[in-house]
Every structure is written in C-alpha cells, then in structure tokens.
C-alpha cells in the first residue's frame, strides 16, 4: 500500500503544475531557514504550507489504518513530526516578526496589496491589523486616557519599531550573481560577485531581493 501521493497537483490560479512532495518539502525547509535568519518578514509561501498540510492529513489517515506496532507506521510518524516542526516553527517565526514590527509591516503591506505582491497571507494580515488595534486600545485605556487632554494623542509612527535592514547575515549563493554593490560610508562603493556555492557575510539590504527570488540562501 502506498501511503503517499508522490505527485501533488498544485493548483495555482491559472496554471496547474505538478510538483513532487519532495520538492515541496525542500522549498518549505529553505523558506523556513530564510525566515529564521532574515531581519524582515519575507513573502509568504502559503501555497507550500497548505499543500504540505494536505499531504500530512492524507498520510495520517493512512497510518491509522496500519497496525500500531508496524515499523512503517513509526517511521512515517517520525517523518511527519519532523515536517510539522518545520511548519510550526516557520509560522511562529512569522508571527513573532509581525508582532514585533506590526506598524511598518502593515503600512508596507497596504502598499504592496495595491500591486498584488503581498507578503502576508490574508489571515496574517487580519492578525496584524487586530494586533495593532488591540495595542492601541490597550495603551489608550491604561495610559493615555489618564493623561492631560493635550497628551492623549496616540502617535502610531513613534511607536513603530523597524527591522534593522543593515544587519549582517550569512548566506550561500545558489547561483552565480554578479555586481552586488556594497555601499561604503566613505563613498567608495565596492562591487562583489557571488559565485555559485560560495559563502559570505554581508549586510542584508543589498541582497534582500536575491533571497526573495531564491538566488541566495541564508545560513
């Protein structure tokens, strides 16, 4: 008995592409690793998460049909636990970032939504909105309402905490990328090339787009 559909139909609006569960898992794992290590929130990979969750459910149903002491059952369970760990940790990391940088994330997300290149899933967006709203209400009831009238204004932008895009990260190049410009404060910009497979430490900002299009991997 096969416990798994090795080919999953990933329905993506117009074109339906077939990818294997193995590829989905690899993509998820690298998305998780990038999300853990990047200072800002990255575009969501909800397609992969949903696809994997469906696969897990399907397999769990099949495992339950196997006798409990079956070796295969415990192997499959172990693998599923590993995958669930990745998914949970990935989603939690995103939630942590959303809570920490909620104000700039919401502002930027509203702009991105106009162009249709949103980073958050609809549920994450709703969560972020409610989080900011609750924070505002909380600050108002606990502190601001007790203040003199001219100090009661809630200044959203002064509360905002921004991710530090100048922070340094480690990365590995998945493919050769040439002409990365490293800004130098003295005005002498340096240009470097990332050869395929090479590893570097540098500022996040110049390579942010390369992470989003998969040309480099954070390590």
């Amino acid at each position, binding site marked *: 008995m096969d416990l798994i559909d090795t080919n999953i139909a990933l329905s993506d609006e117009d074109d339906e592409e077939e990818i294997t569960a193995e590829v989905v898992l690899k993509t998820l794992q690298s998305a998780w690793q990038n999300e853990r*290590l990047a200072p800002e929130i990255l575009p969501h990979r909800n397609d992969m998460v949903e696809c994997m969750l469906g696969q897990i459910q399907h397999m769990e149903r099949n495992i339950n049909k196997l006798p409990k002491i079956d070796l*295969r059952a415990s192997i499959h369970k172990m693998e599923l636990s590993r*995958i669930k760990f990745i998914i949970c940790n990935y989603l939690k990391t995103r939630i942590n970032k959303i809570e920490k940088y909620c104000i700039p994330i919401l502002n930027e997300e509203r702009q991105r939504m106009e162009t249709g290149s949103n980073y958050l899933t609809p549920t994450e967006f709703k969560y972020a909105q409610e989080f900011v709203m609750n924070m505002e209400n909380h600050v108002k009831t606990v502190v601001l309402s007790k203040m003199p009238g001219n100090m009661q204004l809630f200044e959203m932008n002064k509360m905002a905490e921004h*991710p*530090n895009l*100048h922070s*340094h990260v480690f990365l590995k190049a998945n493919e050769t990328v040439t002409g990365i410009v490293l800004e130098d404060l003295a005005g002498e910009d340096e240009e470097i090339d990332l050869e395929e497979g090479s*590893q570097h*430490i540098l500022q996040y900002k110049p390579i942010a787009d390369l992470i989003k299009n998969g040309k480099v991997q954070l390590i």
Partner: protein
Amino acid sequence: MDPYEVEFIGENRIVSIIPNFTYDKIYLICGEFGPFRAGLPMNVPLWLAMMLKQKQKCRIVPPDWMDLDVLENIKEEEKRSRFFTKMPNEHYMVEAKLILGAASEDVPNAAEIKTIIKDIWDIRMSKLRTSMDALMKSGGGYGRLDHLTMMEINSAKPLLPSAMDYLLQIQMKAQKKVTQQSLLNTSTFSQSGSSQNT
C-alpha cells in the same frame, strides 16, 4: 538559530546502513528508500538511521571520511593551510556526534576518531576566531567564508554579525558628525533592534 536546529537540518543527510530485517520499499515524503534486505547495505536519511539504530534494527556503515588516515590527512592539511580547507561533509560535526554517540560500536577506532574530529574542530574554531578578529580590526563590513560548515558558522553567530552591526552604527554616527560639523549635538546611542533571530 539554535544548534539543535542546525543538527535537525544535518539529519537530512543520507548515510548508509545495514538493516537486520527485510522489508519493502518505503515511500516517504522526502523520497523513497529501500527495499530493506537483511545484511545488505542501503541508503537512508540520518534521522531514520538513528531511529532504526535505537530500535536495534540496523548497523551503521561509517561514512568514508570517518577513517583515521583520512582524518589525519585532513588535520594536517588544516594545520598547514592559512585558509579553511574543504571538509568531506557539509555537516561533519553533526554526523560525527550522532553516529559516534549512538553507534560507536559500528565505527572502528571510535575513540581515536572522536579525538581527531575534535582536534580538527578546534583548529578550525581558532582560525575562525583569528579571522573574525582580523575582519573587525580592518573595519570591514564584508567577509567571505568558503568551506565553513553550517555548525561552525552558527557558532560565530551570536558574536560576529552583531559586532559588525555595531561597528556600522558607530561608523554611521561618526559620518554624520563629520558632515554636520555640529559638536554640540549630543546624540544618545540608540539601539535599533539589531540581529534578532540569530
């Protein structure tokens, strides 16, 4: 990232085992493995090898590089070279720790191998510290770290990126001061959420 997460990633490496039971091919999400034939070597992910070993259902075939002569050469090479040499395995430390921890009886000369891997690790770590020191002293904001394994990079993480972040902040502040030429401007040293999630 925590070391256990690096270990988790390393556990996806494929290793060779000799099962003591016979079973059909198994179709996992990460790929298909098997068929299991008692006494015949086969490849599985490290996490599965560890699980089967704990259930006493297999022997582990030590990887080619887990050999005294090979490791001795690596150690000499590492000592000789100014740069980091390429390790036989992207996760050598994780693999060594798990295999020698759970299956030391399957590896000939396990105790000596453990010592020599530790030596190699120590040599590389001291090199890493020296190069971090040099990088900081040169005031650079960029470094290349070929051949460092993930666990080694991870061990530098609490320190190196945040040190570089602070250096950059100080340089930015200094720059601002020079351009503004306003000595009276006493700015407080603000700490903007640097290097989270490391």
